[in-house]
């Protein structure tokens, strides 16, 4: 077990495994997302209240879930890097940030597009929308901090601290709709209990969620490889990895 973790923690091993896994995740993501979009747009029945407008859920909810999931991943990787001084963990955290920021932006933008016809406004300052916007700024802050510090090790440590502190925002976003009167409705999907959605609609949403997860895996592995190459001090394995193919 420990040797396995140690092996995975070594950049050459990670690079090799990431290279091998990326296409699998990539193709799975493509299949799931194409099927999910098709099903969500054309197979799922219309909603009794929102008619076809509800179909925005198929891009909004997966983006929003991913924005939180990626942040937790980033903070975990940063914490591992900080505690055990593993450079690879910092590389993974750094790879997460831009992807997470893009999905947070997507969640906000599609939510806004959805809110205009349904709620009657593009934006309100309720607890859910405000805390999700704070998440976007956390990602931006993390990336800005990394870019501002030249020394690799110091940038890793400072940004890791920011990522860990920002984790507090995650439960606030998740439970904001239960804790306060918000305009945003409570969660349709929750771990416990039956989802408040018809099974014919739900299946495509779950497919999109799985597709987005695979998509994140493929992109983060690619970005992490780039980060690992940037940090490679021992040139021998790089030569092997690049010319062995």
């Amino acid at each position, binding site marked *: 077990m420990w040797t396995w973790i140690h092996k995975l923690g070594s950049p050459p091993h990670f690079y090799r495994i990431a290279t091998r896994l990326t296409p699998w995740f990539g193709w799975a993501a493509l299949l799931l997302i194409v099927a999910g979009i098709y099903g969500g747009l054309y197979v799922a029945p219309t909603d009794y209240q929102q008619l076809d407008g509800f179909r925005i859920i198929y891009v909004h909810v997966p983006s929003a879930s991913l924005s939180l999931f990626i942040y937790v991943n980033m903070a975990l990787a940063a914490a591992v890097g900080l505690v055990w001084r593993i450079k690879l963990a910092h590389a993974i955290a750094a790879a997460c940030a831009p992807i997470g920021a893009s999905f947070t932006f997507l969640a906000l933008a599609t939510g806004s597009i959805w809110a205009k*016809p349904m709620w009657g406004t593009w934006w309100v300052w309720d607890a859910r929308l405000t805390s999700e916007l704070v998440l976007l700024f956390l990602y931006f802050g993390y990336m800005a901090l990394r870019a501002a510090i030249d020394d690799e090790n110091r940038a890793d440590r400072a940004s890791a601290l920011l990522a860990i502190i920002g984790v507090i925002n995650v439960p606030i976003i998740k439970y904001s709709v239960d804790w306060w009167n918000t305009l945003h409705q409570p969660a349709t999907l929750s771990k416990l209990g039956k989802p408040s959605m018809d099974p014919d609609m739900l299946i495509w949403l779950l497919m999109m969620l799985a597709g987005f997860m695979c998509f994140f895996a493929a992109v983060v592995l690619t970005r992490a490889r780039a980060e690992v190459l940037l940090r490679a001090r021992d040139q021998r394995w790089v030569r092997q990895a690049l010319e062995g193919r």
Partner: protein
Amino acid sequence: MKARHQRLMAIGLVLVGLGLGTTFLLRAMNENILFYYSPSQVAAGEPPEGRRFRVGGLVVNGSVDRVPGDLEVHFVLTDNAKTVPVVYSGILPDLFREGQGIIAHGEMTQDGSFRADEVLAKHDENYMPPEVEDSLKQVHGGSET
């Protein structure tokens, strides 16, 4: 080994401290994070006087009255305890209908009605096709009679 444990401890302490701090801060701020007041709270005089605020409630069935040839709409909001009459002129959101949850932004007028300049629809987390909704209604109606 020891240094690593110290770092773990430090991170843990920072997290616990920040968590506690935020919890207390949010509890204190709770009143202000409320996005809207209910008709009962309005009746009890809770919203600040002379200031704009939001009222949230359900549109009472049969209360919607549109002025012909004009955008002006009158309707009544309820929380099943108290009611607030609302006057609004403007475009209503798609989800506006009788029985729907609505949040109106504006101020109270002299005659005790609420003059809104923004009406937002709040919807719930349930999604289903129209047929399912119909059958649900039938089951519901059957059990009530």
